[in-house]
């Protein structure tokens, strides 16, 4: 029962990530499930769902279909929907029941592609992993399928990878990043997956550098690096004081072609392990947490800042002493650990806090608290993360 969640809701799962990543691609997306997973996706994991006409469907899997392996029923439904929708591509997204009965979603997609004549994908998502995995496999599949080698753009240019709706919610953070890039003389070739089009996707090798802004973009960055030699920079510039350093690093990656991670190197003093009382714990998605850490350190926070990864941890994005928080028990232990007097985390995680004298800074994440706190999430780039901190400092942080 180690993975039991008593106070926290389940975080956004892989099928939501995959479906979300395809949201802007005019993709007929079918979640192969009984409807609970589709409901989860459109109701809680996809902030852009209401008011759109994106063709997301539920296969309406029933017990007898699962028992009889009646894949033809699903295929026929998809083909008939495609006749009227005429989408550019089709995706079948797996869920727990197809996983249990061993349904071959990739094979089904193969068959659909042959019969419908449009590119089709099958994703073996199971609901057992987090959204970032789903975003990654969907983006990787798009890249493998559509990206073509093309001439480099004449001006310095980047792709933004990992810009998914679950990580960035309804905040204008990515738009602010694009503005900063433009001000520094960088054009944007493709932003993936939010705002992606078939055209920008196909031509994304025109960019000189891939900017990875969340963990979900890392796998695609590696793929583009291996296939087309495009170097990547992982990180985000939160806080005014981080911006020059961040863009210096971007410039360096562009010139040297060597991959880099922003937010893990620092002066030695900040590599200390947190001691009793003085530490800061930043919990959430790893790349955003690294960005918050840099902002906090630049702001003059004296104590060591530790990142606690909520959705999984990449070794290459870590500092020593960063921790992976795999379940509610581990999150709770970390949050209540006396070494940390300040915690940054989604407001839902505050329910786990037993010691009210700790400073708690709420950083809403759509994959945790969904729309309940979505509007409180800040644009961490525009106006600077420091301004956000200051506004919280003025109020009593613990009573938010």
């Amino acid at each position: 029962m180690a993975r039991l969640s008593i106070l926290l809701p389940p975080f956004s799962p892989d099928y939501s990530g995959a479906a979300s990543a395809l949201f802007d691609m005019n993709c007929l997306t079918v979640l192969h499930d009984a409807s609970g997973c589709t409901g989860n996706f459109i109701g809680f994991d996809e902030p852009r769902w209401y008011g759109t006409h994106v063709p997301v469907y539920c296969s309406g899997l029933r017990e007898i279909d699962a028992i009889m392996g009646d894949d033809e029923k699903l295929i026929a439904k998809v083909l008939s929907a495609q006749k009227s929708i005429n989408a550019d591509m089709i995706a079948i997204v797996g869920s727990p029941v197809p996983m249990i009965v061993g349904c071959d979603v990739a094979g089904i997609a193969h068959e659909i592609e042959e019969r419908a004549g449009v590119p089709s994908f099958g994703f073996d998502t199971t609901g057992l992993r987090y959204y970032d995995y789903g975003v990654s496999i969907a983006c990787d599949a798009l890249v493998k399928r559509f990206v073509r080698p093309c001439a480099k753009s004449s001006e310095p240019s980047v792709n933004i990878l990992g810009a998914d709706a679950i990580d960035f919610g309804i905040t204008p953070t990515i738009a602010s990043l694009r503005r900063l890039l433009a001000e520094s003389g960088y054009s944007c070739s493709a932003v993936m997956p939010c705002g992606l089009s078939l055209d920008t996707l196909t031509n994304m090798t025109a960019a000189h550098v891939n900017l990875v802004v969340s963990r979900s973009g890392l796998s695609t960055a590696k793929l583009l690096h291996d296939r087309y030699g495009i170097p990547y920079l992982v990180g985000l510039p939160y806080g005014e004081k981080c911006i020059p350093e961040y863009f210096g690093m971007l410039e360096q990656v562009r010139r040297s072609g060597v991959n880099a991670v922003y937010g893990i190197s620092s002066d030695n003093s900040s590599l200390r392990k947190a001691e009793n009382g003085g530490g800061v714990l930043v919990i959430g998605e790893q790349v955003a947490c690294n960005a918050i850490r840099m902002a906090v350190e630049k702001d003059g926070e004296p104590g060591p800042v530790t990142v606690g990864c909520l959705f999984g941890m990449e070794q290459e994005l870590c500092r020593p002493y960063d921790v992976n928080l795999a379940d509610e028990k581990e999150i709770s232990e970390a949050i209540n650990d006396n070494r940390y007097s300040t915690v940054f985390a989604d407001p839902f995680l505050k329910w786990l806090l037993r010691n009210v004298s700790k400073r708690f800074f709420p950083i809403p994440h759509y994959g945790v608290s969904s729309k309940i706190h979505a509007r409180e999430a800040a644009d961490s780039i525009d106006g600077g993360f420091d301004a956000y901190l200051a506004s919280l400092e003025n109020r009593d942080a613990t009573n938010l």
Partner: protein
Amino acid sequence: MKKIAIYGKGGIGKSTTTANVAAALSSQGFKVMQVGCDPKADSTQLLMHGKKIPSVLDQIKEKGEDVELADIAYTGFGGVVCVESGGPTPGIGCAGRGIIAAFNKLEELHAYEEFRPDVVLYDVLGDVVCGGFAMPIRDGYAEEVIIVTSGERMALFAAGNIVLAIDNFKKRGYARLAGIVQNSRKIDNEDEIVRTFAEQAGSRILQVIPRAQIVQEAEALDRTVVEAFPDSPQSACYKELAKKIMEGSANV
């Protein structure tokens, strides 16, 4: 790497034939991996000289995330890498899902990259009873299927069902039928019957294996015929089949 799945009616001689082919291939200088896809976990017994190796699923059950490649892959006669996917005891659990879990574990542990076999043989349980038992012929696994049958009605019926399944899955990029192995049962007109079946299936007979006492004699020694009686005509027959399998794919 050539990946071949062997299907056929229960008890028809899949494991015996597969193990002999594996032994023959290794004697011809190939690196072979044999994966038993059957809860009985007895596919590789002749190659392992009767030693029962722990199955992938047994090891997952016992060790969880700590399973290593050495826990599930064992070296048998001629350096053949032996793996048994395993499964629940009859009447409980979900054997088909078990095959999928075992296959995923092999991928996760990079078994194919580690051993770099020239040939992988998947010896699959009698009838394709559920989705899991089609796993070995899915995209990324076996590209070719060999069906073992005799001239007996029930064996041909099972073989016919497998042909149908392969045909059904064509649109999904699954394996194709490479040919039929006749494991003879000494029934009247057997060669003729199986040849007609192969023609109707749009396939061909790769090899006619005689029913021979020497197979049981080798089995009593916990050996393949190829190992125990390398100079026997039966051994030559398995070696011929092995050769055809390796050359085969181009001209089927």
